[in-house]
């Protein structure tokens, strides 16, 4: 997809003035934060588990090539095929070729952020193949022609009235007077509409939460069971995943699965956890005739050995965005690319470039809440700072900001001069604000005073008072 991250400020402005979005995002605390907190409170070993999860992924990333090769060997051994895709274009083409060879007219899709990253739907549609999203949230945004705004809850930016509107507009074969005023009715309707599509699809495409090197299996977790129908009913199953999804063993995936649902939705486990290994064997009752795994790099391997490598531990649970006050203010679309929130701010500059994604690691107060909930202990703020440093080195930050900071830093290194300057400024502002105790407006400080008052300085600096006290002159 074409990123709009460079327009983050404008995107955010629009989002902040969208009342429906504000209402929709308001549900995140009860929906995600409280549930996660309650589940974790019941699990005393959670912190140890985080350490284990981190260790598994660190080990895997240190031997990534070896584990990916082992995974490929196992997939081949079990009758499947691995397709390596360094770029999104190569991933799209690999998938299109498989679909075309099968003479596919429609494909069903389970939720996959990698499919979003490579803009798969557009590519299939442009080549005469109809992609059908089967995850409820993805289905809704597909109808609306929107992008997901969250990695586990793609339609979280919508209120249910908006969903009903879309259903009335698209499901024209149904009674226009039917009631669609609760979540149940909406879910039932989507399920009924999708049922026919599952049966008719020629190819099923899913993502993967894990690729397991020792067995060549892929794993998905869902709450709707749509993933199983997507991958079991059609003749061909294509898995699309990125390189960092590999883990060495089944045991490792079990460890990380214990972290995943708890961090994501506060469930102990998702409703469905599905392991798929190879195509149907002789004597198997079901399963696809062909099993393909398309593995995307798209800039990830270039992050190895850099501070941003740690982002590759991410298991896409969404906890960081669920707890992020910036995300809660502007929603996911403002970030302008597939991965929003703190993990987007930490990884997107590596995937789509710092020129495009430069705002994202800057739009953070470094409050650290994301890092404190990340099950994989990814130091998200430090990685955002790493990108800010690269920006500074490459002079990508605005010249005025750089000049201002440079001047300030120059003065901060000269305490006598600094004391002199602050004394004058404190006296001036103190006098301006003396009557009210605060300033309503201040030239060059609109970023502050457009939105809030500036409390006035007391008038003399601490250093002034202290020097006076030292010299015995008193006040």
């Amino acid at each position, binding site marked *: 997809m074409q990123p709009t991250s460079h327009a983050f400020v404008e995107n955010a402005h629009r989002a902040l003035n969208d009342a429906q979005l504000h209402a929709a995002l308001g549900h995140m605390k009860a929906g995600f934060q409280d549930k996660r907190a309650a589940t974790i409170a019941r699990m005393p070993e959670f912190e140890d588990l985080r350490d284990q999860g981190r260790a598994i992924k660190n080990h895997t990333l240190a031997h990534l090539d070896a584990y990916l090769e082992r995974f490929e060997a196992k997939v081949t051994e079990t009758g499947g095929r691995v397709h390596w895709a360094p770029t999104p274009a190569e991933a799209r083409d690999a998938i299109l070729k498989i679909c075309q060879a099968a003479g596919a007219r429609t494909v069903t899709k389970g939720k996959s952020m990698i499919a979003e990253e490579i803009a798969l739907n557009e590519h299939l549609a442009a080549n005469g193949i109809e992609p059908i999203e089967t995850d409820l949230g993805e289905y809704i945004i597909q109808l609306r022609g929107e992008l997901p705004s969250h990695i586990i809850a793609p339609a979280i930016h919508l209120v249910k009235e908006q969903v009903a509107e879309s259903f009335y507009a698209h499901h024209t074969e149904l009674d226009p007077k039917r009631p669609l005023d609760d979540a149940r009715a909406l879910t039932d309707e989507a399920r009924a509409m999708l049922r026919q599509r599952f049966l008719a699809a020629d190819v099923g495409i899913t993502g993967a939460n894990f690729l397991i090197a020792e067995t060549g299996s892929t794993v998905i977790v869902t709450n709707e069971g749509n993933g199983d129908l997507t991958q079991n009913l059609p003749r061909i199953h294509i898995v699309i995943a990125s390189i960092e999804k590999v883990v060495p063993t089944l045991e490792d995936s079990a460890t990380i699965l214990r972290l995943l649902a708890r961090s994501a939705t506060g469930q102990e486990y998702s409703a469905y956890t599905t392991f798929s290994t190879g195509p149907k064997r002789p004597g198997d009752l079901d399963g696809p005739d062909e099993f393909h795994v398309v593995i995307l790099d798209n800039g990830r391997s270039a992050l190895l050995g850099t501070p941003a490598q740690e982002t590759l531990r991410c298991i896409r649970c969404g906890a960081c965005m669920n707890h992020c006050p*910036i995300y809660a203010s502007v929603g996911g679309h403002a970030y302008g690319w597939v991965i929003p929130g703190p993990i987007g701010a930490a990884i997107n500059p590596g995937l789509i470039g710092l020129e495009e994604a430069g705002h994202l690691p800057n739009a953070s107060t470094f409050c650290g809440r994301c890092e404190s909930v990340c099950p994989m202990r990814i130091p998200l703020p430090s990685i955002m700072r790493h990108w800010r440093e690269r920006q500074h080195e490459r002079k990508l930050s605005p010249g005025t900001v750089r000049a201002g900071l440079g001047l300030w830093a120059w003065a901060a290194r000269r305490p006598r001069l600094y004391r002199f300057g602050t004394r004058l400024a404190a006296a001036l502002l103190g006098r301006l604000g003396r009557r009210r105790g605060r300033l309503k407006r201040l030239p060059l400080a609109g970023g502050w005073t457009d939105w809030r008052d500036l409390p006035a300085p007391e008038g003399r600096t601490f250093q002034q008072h202290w020097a006076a006290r030292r010299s015995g002159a008193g006040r």
Partner: protein
Amino acid sequence: MVSGPGSMSGTSSSEARDAPRIGLFVTCLVDFFRPSVGFAAVRLLEQAGCAVEVPAAQTCCGQPAYNSGDRADSKAIARDVIAAFEGFDYVVAPSGSCAGMLSHHYPELFADEPEWERRARDLARRSFELVAFLVDVRGMQAVADAAYAGRVTYHDGCSGLRELKVKRQPRALLSSVAGLELTELPGAEVCCGFGGTFCVKYPEISNRMVEEKAADIVGTGADTLLAGDLGCLLNMAGKLKRQGAPVRVRHVAEVLAGMTDTPAIGDTPEP
């Protein structure tokens, strides 16, 4: 006892000899906006049996540069701070954010310079946020003589909370202030939207965050908001005052030290 800028408590000479020497890291915001917080810190530290000094060669901890990706300037400023505070038993700051910079980020900054890293680690080991220092290091369990008639709510500044684990210490001391009633703030651990340069770089987002914070504060019915970081306090006070909310805003040290005759942050002085 200290009555404000200008006088100093008399500690007997033997006490003075045993007293740990504290270098007060005033912080640039306290120095500029609200010296009273610095004097409240001095009083509290003296009550905790410390001898307080204020090195003149201090300006700022360097966070504006550090968080803007300017590593060279951050290091230069950090070197000055490290040098200025060498030799003190402890370095104490009335701010979780600045104390976190000294104790967590300076060592990181010098990861590639062993000699400076050693000195940074030495400073880090000695650096504390004020209230955590009083409680955890000096074993203070109750304030000396402070009283405050009011219903108070408390915001946990992000760095203090998450980097330095400052949470129970201010509450422990506040519970000993005569007349003070603490009502917990819903979302006390959610960022107020200050974030240093963030609040002027992304003012609209910062505004949304502080709006939500202000609504939570007003919702508690408290008449006073306290926190341990002047940056957050200026932001929240600025918003509350702009909205005309009748909430007084103070640094927690002012209340703990019993130094609350100054106008609250952003409040109109009594005529």
